[in-house]
């Protein structure tokens, strides 16, 4: 779990925050509320998850409960990998 979260944080920081100033994202912070991801950003995140973790994100799984924070994404990936 912690390893996945750290990898995800690196991905989010490298691709969306890109070293720009602003508050540090906490593990439970909403990507939406903090304007880290917009709708295209979520689609990019999903493509990244599918490629990196060899999972298939179902249409009905594309909900904020699974994808809207480092905590929720890491937990979702763990569940999917069983």
């Amino acid at each position, binding site marked *: 779990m912690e390893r996945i979260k750290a990898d995800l944080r690196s991905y989010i920081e490298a691709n969306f925050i890109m070293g720009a100033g602003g508050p540090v994202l906490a593990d439970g912070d909403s990507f939406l509320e903090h*304007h880290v991801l917009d709708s*295209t950003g*979520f*689609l990019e995140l*999903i*493509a990244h998850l599918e490629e990196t973790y060899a999972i298939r994100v179902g*249409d009905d799984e594309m*909900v904020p409960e699974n994808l809207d924070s480092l905590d929720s994404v890491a937990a979702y990936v763990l569940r999917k990998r069983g």
Partner: protein
Amino acid sequence: MTLSANEPRELDLDCQAEAERIGRWMVDTLARRLHRRGFVVAISGGIDSSVCAALSVRAVGAGKVFGLLMPERDSSGFSTERGLALAQHLGITHEVFDIAPTLDALGCYRQRDEAIQRVFPAFADDWKSKIVIAGGLAGGINFFKLVVAEPGGDLHEARLPVRDYLQIVAATNFKQRVRKTLDYFHADRLNYAVVGTPNRLEYDQGFFVKVGDGAADLKPIAHLYKTQVYAMARALGLPEAICRAEPTTDTYTLAQGQDEFYFALPYAQMDRALWARDQGMGAAELALAIGISAAQAQRVFDDIEAKRRAARYLHASAETIEPVGPQ
């Protein structure tokens, strides 16, 4: 004013008075701010560009308005038919310019079809396609599905990976950008100004292509809700076929309503949702008025704000590190 489920009145408009006000503003803007001699209007055959063309004629006279019809391979034949009927009705000089060869040379169709074939390898020239939005109103994250139809009519659909989605949109955006290039050719040739034709929903929610249909010198109906644009078309006495035209994107080969591609709701409900949002009304009140659940209404409000954030990039001119030029 409140929202009523039975008698929606909040978007009622005194169309004659409003046409008068817009006309005065257009003349004033043309002469005193833009310093040009007339208007170029791209006519799609839809309601917004038709009303803009009619308002332009009302403002400066038919002799100072140039209409451009720019169909391409995927345009509906009805669009050009209605556009021609409008140009004749208004008595304006107009030109039909088929942009398909230009789009072909730029790779518009090839780039689009390559992306489609990554999802549906059997997709061929005689198939049709469109993109539809999904997820948002059900409480999920917005995503896009590609729908394709075989020549026999069999439909297939699949979620679009982001890379393919972006390539299809980028390729189809050539259409709006090529049209804008032609608008400005004629504007420069005639020393006219280019009229942009978005209604309030499109302008506010960013339903336009940056440096494509988003580019213009003035946008005379950007403050009018779509419902009001329809009322204006009737008040201006436009041909019946135009007054009844359903809003479509006319960009993909399968028929595609604007609410399938971009907006969460059909335009009449979307108008009322946007109005309610800007009046500070709650989701429960909107839900009651348009017959959706309170949770759905809240998602519509959230989607309105998300699209406004995305639209900031579309509206913005180039950033500079500090203000440059006269302040």
